[in-house]
Structures are given as structure tokens and as C-alpha cells.
């Protein structure tokens, strides 16, 4: 079921909701005031490690594959190092820097306005589709394109179509080619299909994707293989493996954020006159955490603290663990559902939903947890799931880090 009013769903009074908002604001202030040298050292150290891993992976592949004796171990080590570097860059560094988590350092080299990440999606488009659309309208049907990414049916309120039967296959393809799925995300496939997309804007975005995607492909599949001389084939397969590993890993982590059973959807009514405190509640109800050790959390960009990330997308990720303790205590105090489980269970639930919702609703049962209190809107279809047009949404971001683009390109936009 989709929630039309978070207050009603959590049976909290207006005063209680506002109090929760104040307490969550206080947590933010505390972290903001305690950000300092140790946090700056953390991100700088991580960037150093990540670039070291990437360089080590490239060198291992170029040099180690030259001799027949070392070829196999070098291939394995090189692919692993490179895959790890790509995962760290995309998850804990790129995603979080682009959220502005490190803007407070006033360091132009680690700033949301000009970070460009190691994947096909141009940073500018990511900041629109993710930072703005997804984080502002989290899990609101018809607003948040991340509910199934326009490819999968992930909510019972979304209308079933015979094409949905293929969902398990689409899902496997999406997982394998995840970076390209992400690259096309901001184009908004559903709007293109319905011919609602401004053709000029689409052309501009496509040009941007092609330019970045071309450089990414050249790097991994032409330039580095060429540098490996006659062992170019080994380098190509190792680089493809590293990219595949990154694709699968980021796919799993991202599907654990909003698709496990406890993460709820919302109807448009919730957005009406939504206060900041209600927005906070929607973030808690719409996200799901997973458990793990420090290493797992770093490799997943601290998105195991998805709830905390959604409450405070621009606070430094290395602080989410300590924030989670406080948020959880607050949720216990007010009986607000807080979804958390081991990684395999969270992903298992997401996978089950993908498979179940490939069929029409009447053939499957709902896995939604019982709400804290019965809501009037349970199992009623939502009213208007029409997607918003560009005119109805605030203007989009057109700026990308100036240093990644030539003056000529800038003037086109």
C-alpha cells in the first residue's frame, strides 16, 4: 500500500511530528559543528587509497601479463584491484562528494560543483535525477523515477502491463549493464516513450552521455589494452570483469535502499503541504538499512545507512554510523518503523518483489508490513500517477564542473 499521510500512518500528532523534526535537526547541527580535521583526513585518505588501487590495478595488468608465468595471477589481481577501485570511487567517494558531503572543506578538488565520477553517467545529469528528483520526492509514486527506474514494476500501485512478465530478465540485464542503465536514467525513458520529453533537452543530454561514455570506453577497452602490447586481450577481459563487478555490486547495494519490504511508497497527497518534519518521516519510512562491518559499509558508500543518508544527504558519510544510533533511538521512542536487516535478506526481499510484481496483483500477495495503525487508504489505488512535465518541476541544473568542459561546450548549453 502507498501512504497518503505520514502522520496518519504513524499515528503521531502534529506536535509530536514537529518535535521529531526538531530532534532530527539537532542531530544535524551537532554533526555540522563537529566536522573537522579528522573527517577531512578520512576522505583524503580514502581518495589516496582509491587512486593507489586504480594505478596498481592498471600497472599489474600492463606489466604482469607480459610473462607467461605471471599472466594468470596478474589478471586476477589486476581485475580485483581495478574493480575495487571503481567500487570505492563510485560509492563512497563520487556519490557522496556529489551530494555535497565534503563541500564544507572549501576544497575545489573535492567539491560537488565539479566532481566527475568514473562511470558513464555525466555528473550533471546524476545531480538532477538523483540529488534532486530522487532525494526530494523519495518513493512518491509518479514523482520518483527510482521506483523501478522506468523499467521494473516495483510497487503494487503501479499498473501491471503484460510486458512486466519479463521483469526477471530485465532485472538481470540491468544488473549486468548497470552503469549504462544509470547513464540513461536522467533521460527518463518513460517520458521519452510517452513523447513528453523536450527534444532539444534530450539531444543535449545524449550528447553529454556520448561524450563521457566514449571516453570511458576508450580508456578501458582501447587505450589500456593498447599499452599492454600483445596481451591486449587479457587487459580487455580484466577491465570488463572489473566493470562488471562494479555494476553488480552497485546494483545490489542500490536495490537494497528502497526495495526491501519495510520501505514504503507514498501517494501524491503526501506531498501536499508537507512540512520539513513530515519530509523527514517520509525519508525514514521510505528507506531501508542493512547491517555489516565497517569494511562493508565503506564499500557500499555507507548506503547501508540509507535511512540516515536520506535524512542528511549532505552530511559526511563517515558519520552515518554514529548518526544511526541516535536516529534508531528516536524511532524506538516514537514507535516509528525502522527497517534494517542483513544484506542478503534485504536483497532477497527486493528480488522477490521484482519477481512477484511481474504478475498482476490478484495473483500474488502483498509483502508490506502491517502499518502501526490501520490507514483509510490501504489498498486503494492512487489517484493520479501521471508523471510531472518539465514545466511542472523546478528548473534543472545546467552546470557541470567547469574544468571538465571546454568553453565551446559550455556555450552550447
Amino acid at each position, binding site marked *: 500500500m502507498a501512504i497518503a499521510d505520514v502522520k496518519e500512518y504513524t499515528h503521531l500528532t502534529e506536535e509530536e511530528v514537529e518535535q521529531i523534526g526538531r530532534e532530527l535537526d539537532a542531530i544535524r547541527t551537532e554533526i555540522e559543528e563537529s566536522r*573537522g580535521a579528522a*573527517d577531512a583526513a578520512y576522505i583524503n585518505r580514502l581518495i589516496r587509497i582509491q587512486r593507489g588501487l586504480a594505478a596498481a590495478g592498471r600497472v599489474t595488468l600492463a606489466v604482469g601479463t607480459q610473462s607467461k608465468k605471471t599472466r594468470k595471477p596478474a589478471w586476477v589481481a589486476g581485475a580485483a584491484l581495478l574493480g575495487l577501485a571503481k567500487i570505492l570511487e563510485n560509492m563512497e567517494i563520487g556519490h557522496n562528494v556529489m551530494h*555535497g558531503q565534503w563541500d564544507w572543506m572549501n*576544497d575545489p578538488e573535492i567539491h*560537488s*560543483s565539479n566532481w566527475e565520477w568514473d562511470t558513464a553517467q555525466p555528473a550533471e545529469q546524476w545531480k538532477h535525477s538523483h540529488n534532486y528528483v530522487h532525494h526530494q520526492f523519495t518513493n512518491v509514486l509518479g514523482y520518483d523515477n527510482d521506483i523501478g527506474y522506468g523499467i521494473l514494476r516495483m510497487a503494487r500501485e503501479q499498473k501491471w502491463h503484460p510486458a512486466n512478465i519479463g521483469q526477471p530478465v530485465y532485472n538481470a540485464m540491468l544488473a549486468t549493464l548497470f552503469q549504462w542503465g544509470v547513464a540513461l536514467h536522467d533521460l527518463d525513458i518513460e517520458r521519452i516513450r510517452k513523447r513528453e520529453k523536450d527534444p532539444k533537452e534530450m539531444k543535449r543530454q545524449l550528447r553529454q552521455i556520448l561524450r563521457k561514455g566514449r571516453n*570511458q570506453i576508450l580508456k578501458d577497452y582501447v587505450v589500456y589494452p593498447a599499452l599492454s602490447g600483445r596481451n591486449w586481450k587479457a587487459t580487455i577481459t580484466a577491465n570488463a570483469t572489473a566493470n562488471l563487478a562494479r555494476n553488480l555490486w552497485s546494483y545490489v547495494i542500490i536495490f537494497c535502499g528502497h526495495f526491501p519490504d519495510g520501505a514504503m511508497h507514498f501517494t501524491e497527497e503526501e506531498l501536499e503541504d508537507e512540512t520539513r518534519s513530515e519530509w523527514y518521516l517520509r525519508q525514514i519510512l521510505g528507506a531501508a538499512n542493512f547491517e555489516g562491518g565497517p569494511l562493508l559499509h565503506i564499500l557500499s558508500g555507507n548506503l547501508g545507512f540509507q535511512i540516515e543518508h536520506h535524512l542528511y544527504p549532505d552530511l559526511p558519510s563517515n558519520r552515518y554510523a554514529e548518526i544511526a544510533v541516535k536516529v534508531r533511538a528516536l524511532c524506538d521512542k516514537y514507535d516509528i518503523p525502522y527497517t534494517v536487516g542483513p544484506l542478503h535478506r534485504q536483497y532477497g526481499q527486493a528480488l522477490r518483489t521484482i519477481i512477484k510484481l511481474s504478475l498482476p496483483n490478484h495473483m500474488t500477495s502483498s509483502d508490506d508490513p502491517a502499518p502501526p495503525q490501520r490507514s483509510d487508504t490501504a489498498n486503494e489505488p492512487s489517484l493520479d500517477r501521471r508523471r510531472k512535465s518539465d514545466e511542472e518541476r523546478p528548473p534543472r541544473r545546467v*552546470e557541470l564542473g567547469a574544468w571538465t568542459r571546454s568553453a565551446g561546450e559550455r556555450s552550447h548549453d
Partner: protein
Amino acid sequence: MSTTVPWHRVRELGSKLTTPLHPDDYLRLVNPLWTARELRGRVEKVVPETDDAATLVIRPGWGWQYRHRPGQYVGIGVQVDGKFQWRSYSVSSPPERSGRTIAITVRAMPEGLLSAHLVQGLAPGTIVRLALPEGDFVLPDPPPPRMLFLVGGSGITPVMAMLRTLDRRAGENGRAMPDVVLHYSSPTPDRMIFRDELHAMAERHDGLALHELHTDLDGMLDLADLDRICPDWRERETWACGPGPMLDAVEAHYEEAGLADQLHLERFSLDLRGEGGEGGTITFRNSGKSIEADGATTILEAGEQAGVGMPFGCRMGICHTCTLRLVDGTIRDLRNGDEFGQPNEPVQTCITAAVGDCTFDI
């Protein structure tokens, strides 16, 4: 650095390997000075000048241009508690074509967090960020035959670069030191930066006349005394650098005499004399924050109040670190009243205020 290697071509090729990053992003991890993306420098020496002032000798990294003009200042950025803080200081060393270092002289201000940090807290080996030299408080080449310098306190630093340049030229190719009068005010002899060097210089050159004034004992310079100290001051091109009130007095004195044209001033504080804006709601689009600001509050201050991670540098309109894209609306430069309002125009936020509602891309 050799000029025969086409470095930009090499970097361009390298970037095919490091895309979407730049080769410098990797190389700086090998040696912090091997990057031209953000200018960096290594502190080589910290030379104490007085109890509260020190000279930092800095070796700049890639991308630095040593051709600063004597009298110009550079921006220096230091990470304090994880956050880069920027200030501008005059270069006190003379420009050298073969030079590998620059020197800045800093006095710790009682309330100045960063200056105290620079004077006491910077160990040799520390990496700092740098901004290229700027400023038009400079020594012309060739210098005018007769000059007057009016200096108060740490205002000596840009003048020192000019004097050292004149001194070096006199030594190198026998060009005589022009006729220079330096009037230097300082609270006590001990607090006088470069005192010994200036004495030695005055001894070497007949053309250089040094007047010292110790204001704790003898009071501030009364500009009416200028006729006595330097009877021909009206015929001299003049450079004045020091505390704000002193510069105001000098400026008024020269304007009264109708000689404003031959006076050069260096102010190290923001002078917001232009008309304010009308204020309005400032929206920060990427972070989704907004704030009401009046016409006297700078965009930068407003953004910081709203909790936006605003980039900033000198906070006085010189270093352009704070530049953001103005998506929509109009803003006014508080120094001179100029308005900016083209869509997507990059603007400096530290010296501008809103004229009506406006939106920024951050």
C-alpha cells in the same frame, strides 16, 4: 622547467588514461607539488621577523608563474580544522626569473585566526594552496625618478618587494637607486619588520632616505608634517600602505592638494562603498535551501547563514574562489554598484548582494 617539452600535449594524452580525472590528480599523490589543477606550494622556511611576524618562504608547484610584479599579493589557503581558509598577503621577495621560491611576510593579528596560525603554526614542509599574484599596487618599470613611500606597520611588505627590486637592480647593473623617501611608522622599534635590512639598504644607497616613526612614543604621523619630512612630496609619485585610518587620511590629504592622480593605495580590507541592493529571497538550487537577505548582506554570508557549503577565498573580491553561477535574478557589486543579471552568469558572491529574488547553482 624546460620550455621544449609541450607539457599540455603530454597532459592531454595522459588524461586519456585517467579520465574522468586529470593526470595531476594522481601525480599530486606522488609529490604534492606535481599538479597545476589547484596551485600548491611547500613551506621551505619560516623566518621570524619580529615577535609577532614571520616570513614564509614557499616553493610553488606546477603551474606557478614567477613573473609577479613587485608589490603584488598572492592568495594563500591553509586547511584549519579540515576547512580551507584563504587570505591574501603581499609578496615581499623581489621577482626573479630564475627564482624557485616566493616569500610572504605575515603579522599575527590579535583577532586573526589564520595569521596567527601562519606565524606560529606552520612547520617547514607544510603544503599550502596558492592563488596567482594579483594587484596593481606595483612598481612601474622603469621606476619614476622620484618616489615617496608612506608605510604603516605590516604595510611594509609590498613596499619591501619594490625596494628589494630597486636594490637588486642597482647592485646587478649599476643602475642608481632612484630618489626614494620611505616614511615607516611602527608602534615600537622592536615591532618594525625588516628594520635591519632597511638600515643596511639606506646605508648602501644615497638615493634612499629612511624616516622611522615610533608611534607609541611619538604619536601618529600628522600629514601636515609631510612638508617638513619630505618638502617636495608634491612632486613625488607616492605609494601608501598601512592601516585603514591612515590610508583614509593620506587619501584625503592628496585629494585636498589635488594630487590624487599620483597616489597609489593598497587596502587590505573590503571597502563596500557602493550602494546596497534591495535584498530578496536567495535560492540555492542544488541544495534546495533559500534565505531572505537584505541588500547589505553579501550572497556569501547569506549562503553561509542558510547552511550552504559556499566556496570562499579572500572574502574581499580579489581571488574569485567564491565564484558561483547566477541562474536567475540580479545582484549588485557592493564596491561600485555595478549590476549583474545575465542568466547563468558566473559571479563573485563575497562582494555582491541581491537586488530582488535570485537563484544560484549550488
